[in-house]
């Protein structure tokens, strides 16, 4: 909104920033893409709630839920969701060395080594989940 001119408080000079400011440069776009990963996270929770609902309605309802997941557009949607979720995981894990600088013997531990335990734990958790679902 325009501010009135007064003697002691001249009109603000504020350059209008475009709504699409983040499209201009790759680091800005990367930032917005990272922020948008939260949509894929929320989508996943919605999908899981639908799955639990179908599970509670009996085998026929759960079968229909599984059929839906095989639709090509569903697979395409989930592929995009998976890419965003993986981007969240990677950017989240790589924040660890930025959040805490680990020093050993007066020297800073390389970023890669600080982030590495996250990836190891991630693989272990994923393998544990797969084992639980696949056994017997």
């Amino acid at each position: 909104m325009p501010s009135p001119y007064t003697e002691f408080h001249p009109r603000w000079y504020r350059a209008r920033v475009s709504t699409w400011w983040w499209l201009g440069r790759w680091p800005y776009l990367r930032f917005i893409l990272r922020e948008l990963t939260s949509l894929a996270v929320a989508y996943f929770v919605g999908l899981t709630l639908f799955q639990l609902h179908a599970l509670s309605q009996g085998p026929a309802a759960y079968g229909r839920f599984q059929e839906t997941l095989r639709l090509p557009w569903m697979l395409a949607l989930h592929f995009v969701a998976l890419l965003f979720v993986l981007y969240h995981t990677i950017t989240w894990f790589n924040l660890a060395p930025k959040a805490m600088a680990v020093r050993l013997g007066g020297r800073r531990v390389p970023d890669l080594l600080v982030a590495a335990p996250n990836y190891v734990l991630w693989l272990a958790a994923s393998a544990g989940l797969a084992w639980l679902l696949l056994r017997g």
Partner: protein
Amino acid sequence: MAGRSNDPFFWGLFSAGGVVAAFLIPAHLLLFAFAFPLGWLDAPSYARLLELVRTPWARLYLFALCSLPLFHWAHRFRFTLYDGLQIKHLNEVIFAFCYGGALAGTATAAYLLWSI
């Protein structure tokens, strides 16, 4: 400034949800949205899955898996709208939409996991 800010509380939920999402969602999505529907791996039977979900640990696990990432979304999406689209003047509406959504999702998860 009067009063204490609630930010640390919401940021804590954002952070906890971010950790849960980062560690667990990719494997869930890969298994349930690709490996099972496309037949790469044998999907657990309906009876087996239901039995598994009904154990107390699985209920707690699934509750955390649904609730915390929703609060992560609420915080992050709120600031995406503020910064990305510069709609800070809709502050209250966005706040209610994001955290209201996270609360509604949490309540739905609690209900489903309780009654399943």
